[in-house]
């Protein structure tokens, strides 16, 4: 096949993105475990990953730009490089947010907590982790059928988001835990919602990569359909 070198460079670049994705997933996994077990030591291990992920993302961006400059890609090659850059950005951002959450876990390990709110945060974290994992899997396998299901899972995150904010704003009779913890919990809620969104968009970008069609329109139809049913 002509352009073997170019194809190899594209394959290598995708492998690099998946490798970064795998590491971010590992961080996310540790974060969820640390939340579940209140394990500050485990969370502490993830502090500093942000710098590494950003450096890695920059390297992928540079390689992608060089390929664009040297190979003048079009059609699926162009879509792939565009998607690689977008997905990389999502991975790096998710890594950063994961580190932020780990910071909170370390900082508030001694704090008194509202158990109901904590349980909501943990469920939200698990769901975000699942969405992120599936988004990355969709990108890896180009399995766009699953991309549309991600939106439904994200709806669950949005619901938990509302529940968590409600619990933060209206603490239970037992007091709702330390004020500082409640405040930091609000940040965690926001970070988790973002991580889930990054996962959803990785799936959505894969739809664009494979079909050349934007998933946004399909998503909009989905959202409007749900609103209509209500």
């Amino acid at each position, binding site marked *: 096949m002509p352009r073997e070198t170019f194809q190899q460079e594209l394959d290598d670049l995708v492998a690099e993105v998946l490798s970064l994705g795998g590491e971010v997933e590992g961080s996310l996994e540790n974060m969820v475990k640390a939340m579940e077990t209140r394990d500050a030591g485990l969370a502490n291990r993830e502090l500093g990953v942000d710098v590494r992920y950003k450096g890695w993302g920059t390297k992928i961006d540079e390689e992608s730009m060089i390929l664009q400059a040297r190979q003048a890609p079009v*059609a699926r090659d162009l879509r792939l490089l565009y998607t690689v850059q977008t997905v990389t950005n999502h991975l790096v951002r998710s890594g950063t947010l994961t580190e932020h959450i780990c910071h909170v876990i370390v900082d508030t390990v001694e704090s008194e907590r509202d158990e109901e709110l904590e349980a909501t945060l943990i469920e939200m974290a698990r769901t975000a982790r699942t969405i992120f994992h599936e988004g990355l899997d969709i990108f890896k396998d180009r399995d766009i059928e699953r991309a549309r299901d991600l939106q439904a899972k994200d709806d669950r995150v949005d619901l938990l988001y509302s529940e968590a904010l409600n619990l933060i704003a209206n603490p239970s009779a037992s007091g709702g835990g330390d004020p500082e913890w409640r405040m930091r919990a609000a940040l965690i809620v926001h970070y988790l919602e973002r991580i889930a969104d990054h996962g959803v968009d990785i799936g959505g970008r894969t739809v664009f990569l494979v079909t050349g069609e934007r998933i946004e329109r399909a998503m909009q139809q989905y959202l409007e359909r749900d609103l209509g049913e209500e």
Partner: protein
Amino acid sequence: MEMERTREERGVSEAENKPGIRKKTPEMSSVAGEPSALGMKIENLSAFYGSFKAVTDVSMDILINKVTAIIGPSGCGKSTFIRCLNRMHEAIPSARTEGCVMLEDQDIYAKEVDPVSIRRRIGMVFQKPNPFSKSIYENVAWGARINGYRGDMDELVERSLRRAALWDEVKDKLKKSGLDLSGGQQQRLCIARTLAVEPDVILMDEPASALDPVSTQKIEDTMADLKQRYTVVIVTHNMQQAARISDYTGFFYIEDMGDPGRLWEFDGTEKMFSNPNRKETEDYVTGRFG
């Protein structure tokens, strides 16, 4: 000296002063969804060399004031096709066409139509620049003069050279031979020569393939201006060139060795280079074959 030139070259500039074909520009929807006037309509066009069918069953609309690029692997019939659009294909012994090519509302293959008058309205620029061994001025003026042009010839020469983006480079040496110019300048001189007879459509058969990158860029810049006034069809092997300069792109393809070339996919250039419908098109534009 002109008599020694090939039939192709004569076709570019020789013309007769026949009454123009009545103009009609029916509105139609372009493939990109924006309304535009139809310049040429090709229906079920096939081209033969003797018994060999080189191109089969091509139907496409060429829109006015747009650049339509024809791409495809070697031997797929691109040049044969474009030569059918101004009846130059039949200049080759035993070559013939079937099907219909309409220039506005005129069938250019109708019996009463003189091919020379068609070649005046549909000019052609070739791969290799082929200026006459005359002065720069005469290269541009000659076609218009034998065509019965009665206006201000100096003005016509300057206007044509300006439109071909060559005026500034040659205005002080119009009496010098066209053959003294660089390859890129010669090609722009050939474009000016084509423009001087005021064609409706300009066909270009790989006009920049023999030129250096700077000259190529000048030709490409020229084309952006040309389409303000003319309808342009360009055959190119340079896919990035097609992507840069054209509004519409047709991909010609041969499915099996020995088959005639077909128009495999035809769409807006943005679509063809970002998300073509057919796998073969995508494989070709991404350089996976051809």
